[in-house]
């Protein structure tokens, strides 16, 4: 009996990633990191800026996301996100660009608490990457 399930990441432009030999996914859910294994209960949650870790037979992968929704049902994990980057493909300058943007956003004074919190999160995550 295999302990694998299917994960699909889609962004508005295309289907970003489909994998069906995944053993565990860790997503940065809004109320803290959440690990998902096979036969998890059906769940819908949304993401805060952070790292998605995908553990599979064919190797582990890490992705940086800024927002999104996760839906898990019948051993299918769907992640909808508008901003996603594979960490391995991200070079230093890209990280710096994102960090700069996030810092600018976090320093704005006219935004509400939630956007402020999300922007702070972004900065924090990006800083740990460097």
């Amino acid at each position: 009996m295999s302990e694998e399930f299917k994960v699909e990441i889609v962004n508005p432009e295309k289907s970003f990633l489909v994998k069906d030999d995944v053993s565990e996914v860790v997503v940065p859910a809004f109320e803290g990191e959440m690990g998902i294994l096979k036969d998890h209960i059906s769940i819908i949650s949304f993401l805060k800026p952070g790292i998605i870790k995908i553990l599979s037979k064919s190797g582990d992968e890490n992705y940086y996301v800024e927002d999104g929704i996760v839906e898990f049902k019948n051993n299918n994990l769907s992640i909808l996100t508008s901003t996603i980057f594979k960490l391995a493909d991200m070079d230093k300058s890209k990280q710096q660009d994102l960090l700069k943007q996030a810092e600018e956003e976090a320093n704005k004074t006219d935004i509400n608490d939630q956007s402020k919190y999300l922007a702070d999160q972004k900065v924090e995550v990006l800083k740990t990457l460097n």
Partner: protein
Amino acid sequence: MASLDDLKKRIASVKSTQKITKAMKMVAAAKLRRAQESAEKGRPYSEKMNNVILNLSNGISDKENAPKLLSGTGQEKTHLCVVMTSDRGLCGGFNSNIIKKAKSYFAKILDEGKELKIITVGSKGNDQLKRVYGDKIIEDISFKESKNANYFDADKVGKMVIEKFEAGEFDVCTIFYNQFKNVITQIPQAQQIIPLNNEGEENSSEESYEFEPDEDEILSNLLPKNISTQIFKAMLENSASEQGSRMSAMDNATRNAGEMVDKLTIEYNRSRQAAITKELIEIISGAESL
């Protein structure tokens, strides 16, 4: 009757027009393929988004306090219409079809004594609407610099719509765009995005979900994203439709030019022959009279 020289010039000019329309057709065909591809690739996202929202809204226990983006403001006084057109012309009936659809909707709303506000996306729509509805247009957006429809642009429009909604500037929002069916058929669509119209859609699964955090909070986060997603979907459909429409329009133009060249060539040959015959008659009759 036009002189031989005139005919020759006209044939040359029609031929060069034909060359241009032919080139435009081929460019449109290449772009169409790309636009169609991205429209297809974009579908899973909006479908999944819809699914999740459907599941969520069914799970909501307290319908009264549901987010306003879902349930509406409770009245239907002010209508906002987002009319999405192209930035370039020469694409057949593409823009006029959307405008026609939009105008009949506008007329209906104004007849009912409701207030109308318009946002135009794409300069062609603005050109056509500002003559009649100039005072109703509150915003005029154009993405001339963006080569392809991208989510970033759609998000900008979506955020603007939501901002205006939260400021209480309108109650109902409808977007107008062309749905791509195939190269010759594009269907102008009016889609209501605020409040979300889920009626008639059956929930596929009765399965209950766990929500983290609770439904309301997820919904209030998700709904604004859904607006941008719907607008993005409309943009993708629109760009595929635009190229398809342009392709068939240019194909027609090329064919018409070909017919015209044929007609003119026959006329040219006839008048050339007539001139030769006339000259021959003159020579013969001259020789006979000697």
